[in-house]
């Protein structure tokens, strides 16, 4: 698992049921658009993330695309982060933002194809 992927998963897990839009995730995960969107596309392709367009609230407003973790994606995210924490010898450090950055152990999220 790469560091950008870890950050995105942590951002999603801050509130797993809340839909997040691209710029919101960029800020939460401190990633650039060129890193985030390919990552989201891959997660969506693997059905770990689902997306939906918002309904414009007023005329002329551009609808945004919202992303949220699927139930399978939520399980995979927790498993991956737990695995990463174990790999770093800190099983208790699972809360978002508490893991030290670095390359993490490969897992079921198809390492090398994400992030």
């Amino acid at each position: 698992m790469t560091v950008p992927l870890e950050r995105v998963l942590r951002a999603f897990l801050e509130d797993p049921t809340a839909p997040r839009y691209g710029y919101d995730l960029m800020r939460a995960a401190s990633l650039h658009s060129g890193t985030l969107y390919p990552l989201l596309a891959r997660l969506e392709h693997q059905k770990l993330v689902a997306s939906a367009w918002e309904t414009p609230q007023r005329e002329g407003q551009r609808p945004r695309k919202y992303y949220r973790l699927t139930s399978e994606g939520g399980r995979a995210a927790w498993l991956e982060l737990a695995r990463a924490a174990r790999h770093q010898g800190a099983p208790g450090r699972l809360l978002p933002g508490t893991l030290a950055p670095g390359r993490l152990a490969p897992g079921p999220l198809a390492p090398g194809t994400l992030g």
Partner: protein
Amino acid sequence: MKGERALLRAGEYLVGFACRRLPPEIQGERYREWAAELPAILHDREIRPAPYRAVRMLGYAADTLRGTGLMPGRGRPRLAGTASPLWPGLLVVAGSVAVVWDVRDTVRAPGHWVNYVQLAWALFLVAWPISQYAGSTVRMTGLIVIGGGLAGLVVCIWTAVQAPGDWVNYVSVFLLLVLVLVWYLVRRWVRTGQA
């Protein structure tokens, strides 16, 4: 913000340019998604001062160009304005001939700085069409740096062998090695997001 309309238009142009590198079936959706964030960034009150918001917005738009090279299911990129591999192929062949020629000239006259400039340009001619077919702009930069660095190393090692007593050749080899190493570290930093 003053000039907001022009800024948004510039951002939309960059996003549109990036989306043209995507397969046609997803171009429209990606454009709508990415362009919808532009006004949000431009109006983000948490980013101050206002000119910085404009820079962030344009940075966001420009970085989507990098992102298109990493998107899954992205079609094989083509050189702008070309429909067949003829022109890139010709460029590679011409560039390769130029590289061989310039390496020869550089080895013959290592003190003549123009040869090095010509060599760098010839390497660019080879690296650019290859990178257009192989992947992203990051790869293009990588090819140029690695190609240029290795060619320079060969030239410097050759001149060092020719004149083993000249310490300048060893310094040149060292500097080129450092250049390649720095490029590798920077690329690693960009990929992992850590220093």
